[in-house]
């Protein structure tokens, strides 16, 4: 088991899977958060909407984003890795089919695709938690949609902070930047809804 783990780590390092996976996680997580913030704001502006309708719409969006993340990343990364392997083989003037590089080029798209699909789904579930809590009858300090919108802002803020840490810059600055993007998105939806 330990040997298998070391082997997986070796393949991940060889293909820079961690960096690529992290990038997809943040990008698609951000997509997921904004994609949930949009409908939540829309329902909030609309006023009297059944909680079940909101939950179903948001779950649908989350699942669609997850499936889209897995499939699009798998296809694009597989093509990218295949080309990279071919370039490397041309430079080596040798076949690398039996090498760790070929194995990494086969496994990396799968690993990264799973991360890419899981990110928007997990983010969506986090944002939907207050809605589920309200549907289950748990008391909330805010109305369900307001709590979900607040959760979306919180998740986006945390993703920004994570990005800031990766970039080695001041985490709060990056977190505030992403939060401003979310606020602008919310305001646009609010404005469109009130026209």
């Amino acid at each position, binding site marked *: 088991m330990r040997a298998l783990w070391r082997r997986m780590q070796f393949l991940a390092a060889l293909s820079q899977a961690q960096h690529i996976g992290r990038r997809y996680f943040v990008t698609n997580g951000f997509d997921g958060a904004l994609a949930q913030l949009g409908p939540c704001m829309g329902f909030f502006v609309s006023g009297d909407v059944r909680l079940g309708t909101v939950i179903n719409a948001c779950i649908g969006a989350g699942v669609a984003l997850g499936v889209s993340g897995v499939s699009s990343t798998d296809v694009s990364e597989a093509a990218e890795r295949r080309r990279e392997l071919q370039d490397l083989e041309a*430079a080596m003037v040798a076949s690398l089919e039996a090498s*760790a590089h070929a194995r990494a080029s086969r496994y990396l798209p799968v690993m990264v695709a799973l991360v890419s699909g899981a990110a928007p789904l997990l983010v969506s579930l986090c944002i939907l938690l207050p809605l589920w809590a309200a549907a289950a009858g748990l008391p909330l300090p805010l109305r369900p949609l307001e709590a979900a919108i607040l959760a979306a802002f919180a998740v986006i803020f945390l993703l920004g902070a994570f990005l800031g840490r990766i970039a080695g810059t001041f985490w709060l600055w990056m977190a505030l930047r992403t939060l401003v993007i979310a606020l602008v998105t919310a305001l646009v939806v609010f404005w469109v809804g009130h026209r």
Partner: protein
Amino acid sequence: MAAVRRVVLDILKPHKPNALEFARVLAEQGPGYRVSVTVEGVDARTESIVVVVHGEDIDFDAIEAAIRDIGGALQSIDEVEVVGGGT
């Protein structure tokens, strides 16, 4: 039976794994193997390295398979040191 004590190999490899990881993988092929790697030249995608493996009884096939497995191409065997087992 004759035992291989030392081999010097000329290898072309991709940048990854780096020299340290490359040496580590080769050293794991047998007990007491000592491996040194010298980078002789660096290209856009590849590196030419000289690998020296020391050991009491080097399993050359295992070394060659490991080199292939981590993406290296053995260009030539430049030096060998073999100790005869006969009486």
